[in-house]
């Protein structure tokens, strides 16, 4: 099961934003700091934190909080 608090903490750290910014509507479009470079580090940090390997095709596309949750949940279920 995905720990959303941890997820939010990783996003806050890697995107360098306030925790209030990370909600269900958060995405690359709504968060100015979330550029392609930070996105890359975010993906690496998520992999590190949740001990999963995000597939190539998802890595570039999980550009919103909801999509990240979706992909991480699927990966964690597959791992369990």
């Amino acid at each position: 099961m995905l720990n959303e608090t941890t997820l939010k903490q990783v996003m806050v750290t890697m995107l360098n934003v306030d925790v209030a910014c990370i909600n269900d509507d958060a995405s690359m479009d709504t968060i100015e700091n979330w550029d392609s470079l930070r996105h890359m580090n975010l993906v690496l940090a998520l992999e590190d934190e949740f001990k999963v390997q995000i597939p190539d095709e998802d890595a570039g596309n999980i550009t919103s909080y909801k999509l990240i949750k979706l992909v991480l949940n699927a990966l964690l279920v597959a791992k369990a």
Partner: protein
Amino acid sequence: MNVPDQLLTTLAKGDATLSQLTQMIAVLEQREYPVRLSIGISSSATVDSLGTYLRKHALLAGVRADIMLGNYDDPIGDVDQFVRAGVGQMVLLPFFDALLPAFEAQLGTMSADAVDAKEAELRARYRLVFGKARALRLVWLGNFHRMNASADVGGDDVAEAVLARFNAALREEAAAFPNIRLIDTGDVVRTVGRQTAFDLRFYFRNKAPYSGAFMNELARRIAQASRGFGTRFHKVLVLDCDNTLWGGVVGEDLMKGIKLGPYDYPGNIFWRVQHEFAALERSGIVLCLCTKNNPADVDEVLRNHPSMVLRDARFVSKKVNWEDKPSNLRALAAELNVGLDSMVFVDDSAFECEAVRQQLPMVTTVQVPSTLSEYPRVAREIAELFLAGGVSADGADKTALYRQRAGAESAKAQFDNQEAYLASLELKVALARNVVASGGRISELSLKSNQFNLTMRRYTEAEVTRMMGDECYAVYSLNVADKFGPAGLTGVAVLRYEGQLATVENFLMSCRVIGRGVETAIWARIAADAVARGCTELGAEFIPSPKNAQVADFYDRLGLPLQSISADGARHYRAAASAFTPPDTSWIEISYVE
């Protein structure tokens, strides 16, 4: 332990996740540091995360590092920027596969002439970079390495040959500049392993080839080679004897019983390690002994043991007595007139090491590992403490050799200034106006570009198409090419016409092509177009965003007079169209497409 010390311990362990690492660095950087330095990073790959790892290793050395990132593949512009900002040192990482798109793959079909031309361009470019970088205290220059293994099992393919040649070229060009230190990035790849060093997912998307493991090792080596960013200056190596220089205890086993020699285990390990220490002594490090023994026993080994490498004359001072080690170390420091912090102490006894660590924490204490096969590796680490940037005795000879060759090279240098270099690139810019077929790419570039983007206005493809059909707008795009091939559509300017005023609504470029004058070459034509439409005035503005600071003074550099600065930092420019003369870019051939 207080919280920051605990964090440092965790940081040193190196098993934190990237998110934890980022957090720890942020917390630790809030403290005051006696040493604060700035490091610029310039690369033809995206290597931003190197900044994180440099900050980490600086903190471990007790230093606060501020990182300034350069643009993508613009070392000349980066050096200018770093020098202006007062940056002290720079990490310069040219990336082999990015010399041309998919360079490693292209090499299989490239003509020898094309490779020669690339090498000449590489030399000319980096000669300029190195010349400008003389203003920096230190430049860490990573050499080239491959991303892909050779398909040839013997490792002998075209890419390997070109790699060796280009690395020799970099070394030769760098040899004339004493502030340049080479870092063997190929060895970093070997150390972390090729599989671990790269993350290709982000190479093809973001030109970011390296993994965190690679960056961490590279940063660690830079910290090591700079002696903890200038915080350590080790000069003296103090060695225990029993189970440090030889196996066994000479007082009990006698000279015949101790283990030391080139062939048999475990004597071969001590013999090997002695050679490592002897090499250090030869390169100018002071060796001393500090051991609890009878002087006569030790002297006999130093003089008469057939396999002893470190003979008596190699030691500047010997403390062979039954005093405690901290007292002996203090006495040595006084005798040699050096600080205790310039000493490295090696001993096999956990008890002795702990005593020194407790009483003399400024001495760097290294314990001989209990797993003896690890000892040669530890000896190498000890050597790294002394040798800054891999400079050793034979390294110095090599440097002199390279220097001669570089001197000969620079005597026949074709390019003595940046303009001549740029001219050699045969830059061509095709400036296009309202080309509907390019709408998609124009929109894409406007959505993607962040750094070179003057107002951050972004356009959908529909908006671009609409503006192209609108009398009040013109959308310019520019295609850049040089003698090595096309860079594609890499710049966009949107003009809005209102009566006699032509305003640049936005100007943006891809990072790939900046620093070659392309950004200023197009404006004479754009201004002439505006005049032809009956405009008498040109207007432009810079609107700041978190990412576009590098172009804050772009219009100033272009020669437009600044009218006003708004409270939000926006800069407004206005010029008479007839009086506007952009800087000279005669090395660029401009063509015009409508």
